[in-house]
């Protein structure tokens, strides 16, 4: 029983990080109908910015005691840098292609993704680096679960960020504009909504969430490298599709489910090398039987 609880706990932790990334995918897809492949690499850049932030703020060797100011600064720095990256990405690569075919944008997105990955290899080198423990690690045990404080921090931060995002999307003027753009780009622009700005801000918000996810992920796994974004990125994309792409709560649900699913591969004794195969099998099954996702409504295609 405690074993099951342990796996559930681990799954929810991973799922929260995946959900943070999935939100970026789903919001961008919502407004632009574009799979932003580069999102997983913004996540990677976020982790690296966290790394450099930690080093420049004197936490490069790890912290002896919890210093909320500096940890907060690290998160803010990483999120700001990635927000800028997401903004530039949209401005330079995607905006000129608004009019073109979806496949053109998709290829561009793949191009940007590979540019960031391998450009990252040039700038950051391809080595694995260990991410400093910017918050001292302590051991916790409750309900028969053995854990460090990191998963708890991840859970709290992720839930807080998702709550903030939900507030923005459902209770602010900008959120309403974003949902309108997501519903119909043209109508929204006719109604006087500055669609370009909404798209930009959507990219910025998605990228900041990915950056936070990147720092949390790096903190949890303790290791970063320029290709670290690929697998979590694909998984969180699957999560976004599973929950219903374009739907904000769907991404959160999907992230949790994929995280749990990954963990249960281990729980049921399958080799962990099957994890990504199973994730993709889920994706394919979802697309075949419920293409709109768990929370989505199916809309037949019009000619």
């Amino acid at each position, binding site marked *: 029983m405690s074993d099951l609880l342990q796996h559930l706990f681990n799954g929810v932790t991973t799922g929260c990080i995946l959900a943070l990334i999935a939100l970026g995918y789903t919001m961008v897809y919502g407004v632009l109908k574009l799979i932003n492949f580069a999102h997983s690499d913004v996540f990677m850049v976020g982790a690296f910015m966290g790394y450099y932030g930690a080093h420049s703020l004197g936490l490069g060797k790890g912290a002896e005691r919890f210093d909320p100011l500096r940890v907060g600064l690290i998160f803010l720095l990483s999120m700001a840098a990635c927000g800028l990256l997401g903004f530039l990405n949209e401005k330079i690569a995607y905006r000129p292609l608004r009019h*073109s*075919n979806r*496949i053109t944008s998709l290829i561009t997105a793949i191009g940007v993704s*590979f540019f960031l990955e391998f*450009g990252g290899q*040039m700038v950051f080198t391809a080595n694995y680096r260990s991410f400093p423990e910017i918050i001292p690690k302590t051991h916790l045990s409750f309900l028969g679960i053995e854990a460090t404080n990191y998963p708890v921090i991840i859970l709290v931060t992720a839930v807080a960020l998702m709550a903030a995002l939900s507030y923005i999307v459902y209770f602010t003027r900008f959120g309403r504009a974003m949902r309108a753009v997501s519903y119909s*780009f043209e109508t929204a622009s006719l109604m006087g909504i500055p669609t370009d700005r909404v798209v930009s801000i959507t990219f910025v918000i998605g990228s900041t969430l990915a950056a936070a996810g990147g720092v949390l992920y790096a903190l949890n796994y303790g290791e970063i490298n320029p290709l670290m974004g690929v697998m979590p990125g694909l998984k969180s994309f699957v999560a976004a599709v599973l929950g219903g792409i374009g739907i904000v709560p769907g991404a959160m649900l999907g992230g949790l489910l994929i995280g749990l699913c990954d963990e249960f591969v281990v729980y049921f004794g399958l080799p962990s090398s099957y994890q*990504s195969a199973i994730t993709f099998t889920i994706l394919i099954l979802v697309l075949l039987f419920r293409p709109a996702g768990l929370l989505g409504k199916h809309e037949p295609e019009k000619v």
Partner: protein
Amino acid sequence: MTLAWLLALGGAFGVALVVLFTLWHDRAAQPGKRLATAGAGWAALLGSLVLFDLSVPYLVNSYIWQIIIKVGIYITLAVSLNIINGIAGQFSMGHAGFMAVGAYTAAYLTMTLGARAEGWVRWLPWNGPWAAFAGSSALASLPHGISTGIIFLIALLAGGLAAALAGYLVGIPSLRLRGDYLAIVTLGFGEIIRNLIANVDVIGASRGLPAVPHYSNLFWVYSMAALVIFVSYRLLASAPGRAMLAVREDEVAAAAMGIDTTRTKIQAFAIGTFFAGIAGALLGHHFEYLHPDYFKFDKSFEVIIMVVLGGMGSVSGAAVAAVVLAIAPEALRYAKDLLGNLTEPAVLFATAPFILFALLFLALFAADIARLIGRGAARFASAVHVRTGGGPVHADIARLRSRPMTRWTGLIPAAFSGRPALRDAGLGGVLGLFAAILHRGLIGAGGISPRIEYWTLTLVGMAAGLLIGSRARGRTAPAAGASGAAGGDGSKAGLGYRRLAAVGMLAPLGFLIASVLELQAPAFLERMSVVFRNLPDPRMVLYSMMLIALMLTRPTGLFGSAEIRTWWREKRGRTGVAR
């Protein structure tokens, strides 16, 4: 050696024959004649490939030989993906997975059945016990080549069929999806296949499969490349191929015309993956070693770049792009060696144009970013101005606010658009500066103060650039007034006072740059050399930049045809996005 040259000559003759037969084939009207010319063409092709295979290894070194083989395999890959992505318009991102299926199947066959077949191969007429009496090993090796050839052909076909089967199985469910979903699902299937292979112990699992026999040679590689090109062209002229084109252009309309779209798409998928499997098999028997990591999705991505660069749907484009992209990394390696020795004057001289363009590119990019920031600041300022109840927005702010960004940020020609004078002066100045640096680096200045030299040459370059540029522009737009002597009244041509003043203001800047360069140049060059020497493989970065630039400027690719352009221009409605 002479013999090798003779054989190669014979091969070239054979290729000429192929060209002739191809031309003849197009003219020949009667079906019987067409069959005959096609047969003769193939015979000539295969014959010349055999001759090349026997001769070329003696004529080139092993490095070039490797590149030649690689080019052939890449052609097969790119043209096969073009059948799926280009001709049928189904964006598949899992090509590497099907390659892996073919590679592993073929390798498994040659390693097991091939070894067992050795037994009966010995009894083939040309390998019988009497072969030993022939005495000459050269004579004995040719028949042996034939028998291993038979085994390899069987393995190739089996690899292709296995991949096609995998493609069929993958295609049935996933081809119901469209566009980006299909891309993701095929990517997923590619990864699943790789994942499964990495867990099957018989074929080495994640350890890799060593000791695959080295059967791939120029003959096999290029005959398969020729086959896939031939199949593509015949496909384009046949009913199923036309159906694929129709599905690509508009699936709904195609279905309305009675085309079984799912069947058509699956056909394209199966044909494409068949040749992907064959390419994989060739690859495995060339490297003599297989590893699941080799078939990661960046391999698929590489093939996609070839197809996209060549122009989706264009068979020749895919083939040409495959050749270019197979050779490019080698050229890049050479460039890297060159750039790693920047401090040598000769190298500096050779690379000066590239460095110049790199500097220009960086300067333009910086200018665009600065403009972006400036525009943002102006927007902010005017917003504050309006919110705080200020009067009419200041003209400068309004102008800055409304100034558009260059459409293709950072791409050199466009970034200069609307700023011809800046372009001319900048180009001339940088050229002058380089002339000065080169002059000092190569010859050394006799007694002239270096700063004066840099300064003068930069200025002279700028002035010359402006003068030449304005003259040139004056010629192309005579209405604007060619003399330009009227002064700084904003006339577009000629060297007005305003421009002279601008040059005067830019000159101190040039002086500053020159003196910094003079002090820092050697150290800077040394540092750059170290950077270039330690650079990891820049291939993927360049590929991705190329892809982005291509999509922004010419999404139909280099050889994209007109029909495909309509496809690319498609359907604002379906994107759901308007400006």
